[in-house]
Protein backbone atom coordinates (compact mmCIF):
# COMPACT_ATOMS: atom_id res chain seq x y z
CA UNK A 1 0.00 0.00 0.00
CA UNK A 2 1.33 3.44 -0.90
CA UNK A 3 2.59 5.40 2.10
CA UNK A 4 0.12 8.35 1.77
CA UNK A 5 -2.82 5.93 1.55
CA UNK A 6 -1.61 4.02 4.60
CA UNK A 7 -1.12 7.28 6.52
CA UNK A 8 -4.62 8.45 5.60
CA UNK A 9 -6.21 5.19 6.76
CA UNK A 10 -4.13 5.24 9.91
CA UNK A 11 -5.41 8.74 10.63
CA UNK A 12 -9.06 7.77 10.07
CA UNK A 13 -8.78 4.77 12.44
CA UNK A 14 -7.27 7.13 15.01
CA UNK A 15 -10.12 9.61 14.38
CA UNK A 16 -12.74 6.89 14.74
CA UNK A 17 -11.28 5.63 18.03
CA UNK A 18 -10.90 9.10 19.54
CA UNK A 19 -14.44 10.16 18.53
CA UNK A 20 -15.83 6.88 19.91
CA UNK A 21 -13.96 7.34 23.20
CA UNK A 22 -15.02 11.00 23.53
CA UNK A 23 -18.67 9.95 23.11
CA UNK A 24 -18.67 6.72 25.10
CA UNK A 25 -16.26 7.83 27.86
CA UNK A 26 -15.63 4.17 28.62
CA UNK A 27 -11.88 3.93 29.17
CA UNK A 28 -10.33 7.33 29.69
CA UNK A 29 -12.34 8.62 32.67
CA UNK A 30 -11.75 5.34 34.55
CA UNK A 31 -8.07 5.47 33.61
CA UNK A 32 -7.70 9.08 34.82
CA UNK A 33 -9.65 8.36 38.00
CA UNK A 34 -7.52 5.34 38.85
CA UNK A 35 -4.36 7.34 38.11
CA UNK A 36 -5.49 10.16 40.39
CA UNK A 37 -6.39 7.74 43.20
CA UNK A 38 -3.01 6.02 42.91
CA UNK A 39 -1.23 9.40 42.81
CA UNK A 40 -3.06 10.58 45.95
CA UNK A 41 -2.27 7.30 47.71
CA UNK A 42 1.41 7.34 46.84
CA UNK A 43 1.82 11.04 47.57
CA UNK A 44 0.04 10.65 50.90
CA UNK A 45 2.32 7.81 51.94
CA UNK A 46 5.56 9.57 50.94
CA UNK A 47 6.36 11.02 54.34
CA UNK A 48 10.07 11.19 53.55
CA UNK A 49 12.85 13.79 53.51
CA UNK A 50 13.04 15.63 50.14
CA UNK A 51 16.10 13.69 48.94
CA UNK A 52 14.45 10.37 49.72
CA UNK A 53 11.25 11.51 48.02
CA UNK A 54 13.22 12.23 44.85
CA UNK A 55 14.68 8.73 44.97
CA UNK A 56 11.31 7.00 44.96
CA UNK A 57 9.10 9.49 43.09
CA UNK A 58 10.18 8.40 39.60
CA UNK A 59 9.26 4.79 40.29
CA UNK A 60 5.91 5.71 41.83
CA UNK A 61 4.96 7.99 38.93
CA UNK A 62 5.71 5.29 36.39
CA UNK A 63 3.95 2.64 38.45
CA UNK A 64 0.85 4.86 38.56
CA UNK A 65 1.06 5.43 34.78
CA UNK A 66 1.45 1.68 34.18
CA UNK A 67 -1.47 0.67 36.42
CA UNK A 68 -3.90 3.28 35.19
CA UNK A 69 -2.79 3.04 31.55
CA UNK A 70 -3.70 -0.64 31.57
CA UNK A 71 -7.38 0.31 31.46
CA UNK A 72 -6.97 2.20 28.19
CA UNK A 73 -4.76 -0.49 26.68
CA UNK A 74 -7.30 -3.17 27.57
CA UNK A 75 -10.20 -1.25 26.03
CA UNK A 76 -8.48 -0.41 22.75
CA UNK A 77 -9.38 -3.80 21.22
CA UNK A 78 -12.23 -4.89 23.46
CA UNK A 79 -14.38 -2.06 22.03
CA UNK A 80 -13.50 -3.15 18.50
CA UNK A 81 -14.91 -6.62 19.15
CA UNK A 82 -18.45 -5.31 19.68
CA UNK A 83 -20.93 -5.99 16.88
CA UNK A 84 -18.27 -7.68 14.78
CA UNK A 85 -16.63 -4.31 13.98
CA UNK A 86 -13.22 -5.96 14.17
CA UNK A 87 -14.13 -8.30 11.30
CA UNK A 88 -15.37 -5.31 9.32
CA UNK A 89 -12.07 -3.52 9.85
CA UNK A 90 -10.06 -6.60 8.90
CA UNK A 91 -12.01 -6.91 5.68
CA UNK A 92 -10.92 -3.40 4.62
CA UNK A 93 -7.98 -3.08 2.21
CA UNK A 94 -5.69 -1.97 5.04
CA UNK A 95 -2.55 -3.82 6.06
CA UNK A 96 -2.40 -5.23 9.56
CA UNK A 97 0.66 -3.00 10.11
CA UNK A 98 -1.46 0.10 9.55
CA UNK A 99 -4.10 -1.16 11.99
CA UNK A 100 -1.43 -1.89 14.60
CA UNK A 101 0.17 1.52 14.18
CA UNK A 102 -3.21 3.26 14.36
CA UNK A 103 -4.10 1.43 17.58
CA UNK A 104 -0.62 2.21 18.92
CA UNK A 105 -1.19 5.90 18.14
CA UNK A 106 -4.52 5.85 20.00
CA UNK A 107 -2.86 4.30 23.04
CA UNK A 108 0.02 6.78 22.88
CA UNK A 109 -2.52 9.63 22.96
CA UNK A 110 -4.32 8.00 25.91
CA UNK A 111 -1.10 7.58 27.90
CA UNK A 112 0.00 11.12 27.03
CA UNK A 113 -3.29 12.44 28.43
CA UNK A 114 -2.73 10.36 31.56
CA UNK A 115 0.83 11.64 31.96
CA UNK A 116 -0.38 15.18 31.37
CA UNK A 117 -2.58 14.84 34.45
CA UNK A 118 -0.49 12.58 36.71
CA UNK A 119 2.93 14.24 36.47
CA UNK A 120 1.71 17.75 37.44
CA UNK A 121 -0.50 16.14 40.11
CA UNK A 122 2.52 14.40 41.66
CA UNK A 123 4.39 17.71 41.63
CA UNK A 124 1.54 19.47 43.42
CA UNK A 125 0.84 16.70 45.95
CA UNK A 126 4.37 15.67 46.89
CA UNK A 127 6.44 18.65 45.89
CA UNK A 128 8.99 16.54 44.00
CA UNK A 129 10.59 18.52 41.15
CA UNK A 130 9.44 16.23 38.32
CA UNK A 131 9.20 19.22 35.98
CA UNK A 132 12.49 20.84 37.00
CA UNK A 133 13.90 19.93 33.60
CA UNK A 134 10.80 19.79 31.39
CA UNK A 135 12.57 18.92 28.11
CA UNK A 136 14.27 15.88 29.65
CA UNK A 137 11.04 14.82 31.36
CA UNK A 138 9.17 15.20 28.07
CA UNK A 139 11.69 12.97 26.30
CA UNK A 140 11.53 10.27 28.99
CA UNK A 141 7.73 10.45 29.09
CA UNK A 142 7.47 10.16 25.30
CA UNK A 143 9.81 7.17 25.10
CA UNK A 144 8.22 5.42 28.08
CA UNK A 145 4.82 6.13 26.60
CA UNK A 146 5.70 4.52 23.24
CA UNK A 147 7.34 1.51 24.92
CA UNK A 148 4.29 0.83 27.13
CA UNK A 149 1.80 1.50 24.36
CA UNK A 150 3.66 -0.69 21.83
CA UNK A 151 3.75 -3.69 24.16
CA UNK A 152 0.23 -3.01 25.45
CA UNK A 153 -1.25 -2.72 21.95
CA UNK A 154 0.13 -6.09 20.87
CA UNK A 155 -0.85 -7.87 24.08
CA UNK A 156 -4.21 -6.07 24.19
CA UNK A 157 -5.02 -7.52 20.77
CA UNK A 158 -3.94 -10.94 21.99
CA UNK A 159 -6.02 -10.71 25.17
CA UNK A 160 -9.09 -9.39 23.33
CA UNK A 161 -8.90 -12.20 20.79
CA UNK A 162 -9.96 -14.86 23.23
CA UNK A 163 -12.86 -14.97 25.64
CA UNK A 164 -10.71 -16.88 28.13
CA UNK A 165 -7.88 -14.38 28.22
CA UNK A 166 -9.87 -11.16 27.93
CA UNK A 167 -8.80 -9.93 31.38
CA UNK A 168 -5.26 -11.25 31.36
CA UNK A 169 -3.62 -8.15 29.91
CA UNK A 170 -2.00 -7.09 33.22
CA UNK A 171 -0.45 -10.55 33.66
CA UNK A 172 0.80 -10.61 30.08
CA UNK A 173 2.04 -7.02 30.05
CA UNK A 174 3.71 -6.86 33.45
CA UNK A 175 6.78 -9.04 32.73
CA UNK A 176 7.27 -7.44 29.32
CA UNK A 177 6.90 -3.86 30.56
CA UNK A 178 8.87 -4.05 33.81
CA UNK A 179 12.29 -3.35 32.21
CA UNK A 180 10.87 -0.33 30.38
CA UNK A 181 9.17 0.97 33.54
CA UNK A 182 12.46 0.57 35.47
CA UNK A 183 14.42 2.40 32.78
CA UNK A 184 11.84 5.21 32.73
CA UNK A 185 11.88 5.46 36.52
CA UNK A 186 15.68 5.71 36.67
CA UNK A 187 15.85 8.24 33.84
CA UNK A 188 13.15 10.30 35.63
CA UNK A 189 15.05 10.18 38.93
CA UNK A 190 18.31 11.34 37.34
CA UNK A 191 16.50 14.06 35.35
CA UNK A 192 14.96 15.45 38.56
CA UNK A 193 18.44 15.80 40.02
CA UNK A 194 19.75 17.40 36.85
CA UNK A 195 22.27 14.58 36.40
CA UNK A 196 22.47 14.41 32.63
CA UNK A 197 25.71 12.49 32.48
CA UNK A 198 26.38 9.05 31.04
CA UNK A 199 24.00 7.15 33.36
CA UNK A 200 21.00 9.29 32.29
CA UNK A 201 21.84 8.79 28.64
CA UNK A 202 22.24 5.06 29.17
CA UNK A 203 18.83 4.73 30.82
CA UNK A 204 17.25 6.94 28.16
CA UNK A 205 18.86 4.95 25.36
CA UNK A 206 17.69 1.73 26.99
CA UNK A 207 14.17 3.16 27.12
CA UNK A 208 14.41 4.18 23.46
CA UNK A 209 15.65 0.68 22.61
CA UNK A 210 12.59 -0.82 24.33
CA UNK A 211 10.30 1.55 22.43
CA UNK A 212 11.85 0.56 19.09
CA UNK A 213 12.02 -3.14 20.00
CA UNK A 214 8.40 -3.38 21.20
CA UNK A 215 7.12 -1.45 18.18
CA UNK A 216 9.06 -3.67 15.78
CA UNK A 217 7.86 -6.84 17.50
CA UNK A 218 4.32 -5.49 17.41
CA UNK A 219 4.44 -4.78 13.67
CA UNK A 220 5.95 -8.20 12.97
CA UNK A 221 3.64 -10.27 15.16
CA UNK A 222 0.36 -8.40 14.88
CA UNK A 223 -0.80 -10.38 11.86
CA UNK A 224 -0.41 -13.64 13.79
CA UNK A 225 -1.98 -12.26 16.94
CA UNK A 226 -5.18 -11.15 15.22
CA UNK A 227 -5.65 -14.44 13.38
CA UNK A 228 -8.88 -16.00 14.65
Amino acid sequence: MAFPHMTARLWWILWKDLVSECRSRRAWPAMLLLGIVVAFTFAGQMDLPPDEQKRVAGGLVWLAIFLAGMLALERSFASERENGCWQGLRLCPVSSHAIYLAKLAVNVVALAALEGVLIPLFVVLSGVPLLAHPAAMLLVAALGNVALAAAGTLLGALAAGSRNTAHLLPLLLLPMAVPAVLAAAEATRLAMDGQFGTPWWQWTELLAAFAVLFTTIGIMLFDFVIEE
Partner: protein
Amino acid sequence: MADPAPAILVRRLSKSFGRRAVLRHIDWQVAEGQAVVVTGANGSGKTTLLACLASLLRPTSGEVFWFGHPAAGDPAARRLVGMVAHDHRLYPHLTLQENLIFAARMYGVAWPRRRAEQLLESAGLGPHAHRTPPTLSQGMRQRAAVLRALVHDPPILLLDEPFAGLDADGGEWLAGRLQELRALGRTLCLVLHDEAKARRLADAVVQLRDGRLESRGTVSGPCLAGLARAA
Protein backbone atom coordinates in the same frame (compact mmCIF):
# COMPACT_ATOMS: atom_id res chain seq x y z
CA MET B 1 -8.40 -15.38 -25.88
CA ALA B 2 -8.08 -16.98 -22.47
CA ASP B 3 -11.22 -17.43 -20.37
CA PRO B 4 -11.62 -14.72 -17.73
CA ALA B 5 -10.81 -15.79 -14.18
CA PRO B 6 -13.91 -16.79 -12.20
CA ALA B 7 -15.09 -14.28 -9.65
CA ILE B 8 -14.54 -16.81 -6.87
CA LEU B 9 -12.26 -19.82 -7.22
CA VAL B 10 -11.81 -22.24 -4.35
CA ARG B 11 -9.10 -24.89 -4.53
CA ARG B 12 -8.95 -27.82 -2.11
CA LEU B 13 -10.24 -25.66 0.72
CA SER B 14 -10.26 -27.27 4.15
CA LYS B 15 -10.87 -25.67 7.50
CA SER B 16 -10.62 -27.37 10.86
CA PHE B 17 -11.07 -26.05 14.38
CA GLY B 18 -8.89 -28.27 16.50
CA ARG B 19 -9.77 -31.82 15.47
CA ARG B 20 -13.16 -30.85 14.07
CA ALA B 21 -13.05 -30.60 10.30
CA VAL B 22 -15.72 -28.13 9.15
CA LEU B 23 -14.79 -27.85 5.47
CA ARG B 24 -13.15 -30.71 3.58
CA HIS B 25 -11.25 -30.31 0.32
CA ILE B 26 -13.75 -28.05 -1.38
CA ASP B 27 -13.18 -27.28 -5.05
CA TRP B 28 -15.64 -24.72 -6.33
CA GLN B 29 -15.96 -21.71 -8.57
CA VAL B 30 -18.48 -18.98 -9.13
CA ALA B 31 -18.50 -17.19 -12.47
CA GLU B 32 -18.63 -13.41 -12.66
CA GLY B 33 -22.22 -12.17 -12.49
CA GLN B 34 -23.56 -15.40 -11.04
CA ALA B 35 -25.71 -15.49 -7.89
CA VAL B 36 -25.31 -18.63 -5.84
CA VAL B 37 -27.18 -19.68 -2.72
CA VAL B 38 -25.35 -21.82 -0.19
CA THR B 39 -27.55 -23.89 2.03
CA GLY B 40 -27.06 -26.57 4.63
CA ALA B 41 -28.13 -27.63 8.09
CA ASN B 42 -27.30 -25.54 11.14
CA GLY B 43 -23.65 -26.00 12.03
CA SER B 44 -22.78 -27.36 8.60
CA GLY B 45 -20.12 -24.67 8.09
CA LYS B 46 -21.87 -22.10 5.89
CA THR B 47 -20.62 -19.15 7.93
CA THR B 48 -17.13 -20.67 8.07
CA LEU B 49 -17.18 -21.06 4.29
CA LEU B 50 -18.18 -17.42 3.81
CA ALA B 51 -15.51 -16.27 6.29
CA CYS B 52 -12.89 -18.24 4.31
CA LEU B 53 -14.20 -16.79 1.04
CA ALA B 54 -13.85 -13.31 2.56
CA SER B 55 -10.31 -14.08 3.80
CA LEU B 56 -11.40 -13.48 7.40
CA LEU B 57 -10.43 -17.03 8.29
CA ARG B 58 -7.18 -18.59 7.18
CA PRO B 59 -7.90 -21.99 5.62
CA THR B 60 -6.22 -25.01 7.17
CA SER B 61 -5.28 -25.91 3.62
CA GLY B 62 -6.26 -24.82 0.14
CA GLU B 63 -6.69 -21.42 -1.44
CA VAL B 64 -9.33 -18.86 -2.39
CA PHE B 65 -8.96 -16.53 -5.37
CA TRP B 66 -11.02 -13.46 -6.33
CA PHE B 67 -10.79 -12.79 -10.05
CA GLY B 68 -7.47 -14.62 -10.01
CA HIS B 69 -6.05 -12.66 -7.03
CA PRO B 70 -5.15 -14.78 -3.99
CA ALA B 71 -7.50 -13.80 -1.17
CA ALA B 72 -4.68 -14.20 1.34
CA GLY B 73 -2.35 -11.94 -0.63
CA ASP B 74 -2.28 -8.18 -1.11
CA PRO B 75 -4.75 -6.38 1.23
CA ALA B 76 -5.63 -4.09 -1.69
CA ALA B 77 -7.45 -7.04 -3.31
CA ARG B 78 -10.01 -6.89 -0.49
CA ARG B 79 -11.66 -4.07 -2.43
CA LEU B 80 -13.11 -6.81 -4.61
CA VAL B 81 -15.27 -8.15 -1.79
CA GLY B 82 -18.07 -6.86 0.39
CA MET B 83 -19.65 -8.87 3.16
CA VAL B 84 -22.86 -8.81 5.16
CA ALA B 85 -22.50 -10.99 8.24
CA HIS B 86 -24.68 -11.96 11.19
CA ASP B 87 -23.52 -8.95 13.18
CA HIS B 88 -23.96 -5.52 11.66
CA ARG B 89 -20.36 -4.31 12.08
CA LEU B 90 -21.38 -0.74 12.86
CA TYR B 91 -19.54 1.26 15.52
CA PRO B 92 -22.06 2.00 18.26
CA HIS B 93 -20.81 5.52 19.02
CA LEU B 94 -20.63 6.76 15.43
CA THR B 95 -23.75 7.84 13.57
CA LEU B 96 -24.92 5.87 10.54
CA GLN B 97 -23.45 8.51 8.28
CA GLU B 98 -20.13 8.51 10.13
CA ASN B 99 -20.03 4.71 10.00
CA LEU B 100 -20.46 4.74 6.24
CA ILE B 101 -18.01 7.60 5.76
CA PHE B 102 -15.44 5.74 7.85
CA ALA B 103 -15.94 2.55 5.81
CA ALA B 104 -15.74 4.56 2.56
CA ARG B 105 -12.48 6.13 3.70
CA MET B 106 -11.03 2.75 4.59
CA TYR B 107 -11.83 1.55 1.07
CA GLY B 108 -10.47 4.72 -0.52
CA VAL B 109 -13.83 5.78 -2.03
CA ALA B 110 -13.41 9.11 -3.84
CA TRP B 111 -16.22 11.16 -2.25
CA PRO B 112 -16.97 9.43 1.06
CA ARG B 113 -19.61 11.87 2.36
CA ARG B 114 -21.50 12.02 -0.90
CA ARG B 115 -21.39 8.24 -1.23
CA ALA B 116 -22.68 7.80 2.33
CA GLU B 117 -25.55 10.25 1.77
CA GLN B 118 -26.46 8.61 -1.52
CA LEU B 119 -26.54 5.14 0.03
CA LEU B 120 -28.56 6.24 3.05
CA GLU B 121 -31.14 7.97 0.84
CA SER B 122 -31.38 4.90 -1.39
CA ALA B 123 -32.26 2.74 1.63
CA GLY B 124 -34.71 5.21 3.14
CA LEU B 125 -32.33 5.87 6.00
CA GLY B 126 -31.66 9.51 5.13
CA PRO B 127 -33.74 10.87 8.02
CA HIS B 128 -31.83 8.59 10.40
CA ALA B 129 -28.36 9.47 9.13
CA HIS B 130 -27.38 11.20 12.35
CA ARG B 131 -28.59 8.50 14.70
CA THR B 132 -26.29 5.92 16.24
CA PRO B 133 -26.90 2.17 15.66
CA PRO B 134 -28.17 1.37 19.19
CA THR B 135 -31.00 3.90 18.75
CA LEU B 136 -32.26 2.18 15.59
CA SER B 137 -34.46 -0.86 15.08
CA GLN B 138 -32.84 -4.14 14.13
CA GLY B 139 -34.21 -3.84 10.61
CA MET B 140 -32.67 -0.39 10.16
CA ARG B 141 -29.35 -1.66 11.45
CA GLN B 142 -29.50 -4.56 9.02
CA ARG B 143 -30.15 -2.17 6.12
CA ALA B 144 -27.20 -0.07 7.27
CA ALA B 145 -25.05 -3.22 7.45
CA VAL B 146 -25.91 -3.95 3.82
CA LEU B 147 -25.02 -0.36 2.86
CA ARG B 148 -21.71 -0.68 4.68
CA ALA B 149 -20.89 -3.76 2.59
CA LEU B 150 -21.85 -1.89 -0.59
CA VAL B 151 -19.99 1.32 0.21
CA HIS B 152 -17.13 0.58 -2.20
CA ASP B 153 -19.36 -1.07 -4.83
CA PRO B 154 -17.60 -4.45 -4.66
CA PRO B 155 -17.83 -6.83 -7.63
CA ILE B 156 -18.25 -9.76 -5.22
CA LEU B 157 -20.79 -9.65 -2.42
CA LEU B 158 -20.98 -12.32 0.30
CA LEU B 159 -24.14 -12.32 2.37
CA ASP B 160 -24.78 -14.51 5.42
CA GLU B 161 -28.53 -14.68 6.03
CA PRO B 162 -28.99 -11.04 5.00
CA PHE B 163 -32.77 -11.07 5.44
CA ALA B 164 -32.51 -11.85 9.17
CA GLY B 165 -34.14 -9.09 11.19
CA LEU B 166 -35.75 -7.37 8.21
CA ASP B 167 -39.52 -6.84 8.10
CA ALA B 168 -41.54 -7.32 4.91
CA ASP B 169 -40.66 -3.86 3.54
CA GLY B 170 -37.02 -4.29 4.46
CA GLY B 171 -36.94 -7.73 2.87
CA GLU B 172 -38.49 -6.35 -0.29
CA TRP B 173 -35.97 -3.52 -0.35
CA LEU B 174 -33.05 -5.92 0.03
CA ALA B 175 -34.38 -8.37 -2.57
CA GLY B 176 -34.80 -5.48 -5.01
CA ARG B 177 -31.31 -4.23 -4.24
CA LEU B 178 -29.79 -7.66 -4.82
CA GLN B 179 -31.65 -7.99 -8.12
CA GLU B 180 -30.25 -4.60 -9.17
CA LEU B 181 -26.77 -5.80 -8.29
CA ARG B 182 -27.28 -8.97 -10.33
CA ALA B 183 -28.41 -6.86 -13.26
CA LEU B 184 -25.21 -4.84 -12.89
CA GLY B 185 -23.17 -8.04 -13.18
CA ARG B 186 -22.09 -8.29 -9.57
CA THR B 187 -21.33 -11.76 -8.21
CA LEU B 188 -23.44 -12.77 -5.23
CA CYS B 189 -22.92 -15.62 -2.79
CA LEU B 190 -25.73 -15.89 -0.26
CA VAL B 191 -26.46 -18.13 2.67
CA LEU B 192 -30.26 -18.49 2.62
CA HIS B 193 -32.87 -20.85 3.96
CA ASP B 194 -35.86 -19.35 2.20
CA GLU B 195 -36.83 -21.20 -0.95
CA ALA B 196 -38.89 -18.38 -2.44
CA LYS B 197 -36.07 -15.88 -2.02
CA ALA B 198 -33.53 -18.32 -3.41
CA ARG B 199 -35.75 -18.89 -6.45
CA ARG B 200 -36.02 -15.15 -6.94
CA LEU B 201 -32.38 -14.24 -6.40
CA ALA B 202 -30.10 -17.12 -7.33
CA ASP B 203 -28.90 -18.83 -10.48
CA ALA B 204 -27.73 -21.92 -8.64
CA VAL B 205 -27.86 -23.58 -5.26
CA VAL B 206 -25.15 -25.55 -3.51
CA GLN B 207 -25.51 -27.46 -0.29
CA LEU B 208 -22.90 -27.98 2.42
CA ARG B 209 -23.03 -31.46 3.89
CA ASP B 210 -20.32 -33.17 5.93
CA GLY B 211 -17.94 -30.38 5.04
CA ARG B 212 -18.38 -30.83 1.29
CA LEU B 213 -20.29 -28.81 -1.25
CA GLU B 214 -22.85 -30.58 -3.36
CA SER B 215 -24.41 -28.89 -6.32
CA ARG B 216 -28.17 -28.83 -6.29
CA GLY B 217 -28.33 -27.54 -9.86
CA THR B 218 -29.90 -24.42 -11.24
CA VAL B 219 -32.84 -22.59 -9.76
CA SER B 220 -34.97 -23.24 -12.81
CA GLY B 221 -34.60 -27.00 -12.28
CA PRO B 222 -35.61 -29.18 -9.37
CA CYS B 223 -32.68 -28.05 -7.26
CA LEU B 224 -34.76 -26.36 -4.61
CA ALA B 225 -36.49 -29.53 -3.55
CA GLY B 226 -33.93 -30.12 -0.85
CA LEU B 227 -33.52 -26.51 0.23
CA ALA B 228 -36.26 -26.33 2.81
CA ARG B 229 -35.37 -29.81 4.04
CA ALA B 230 -31.71 -28.85 4.40
CA ALA B 231 -32.60 -25.70 6.26
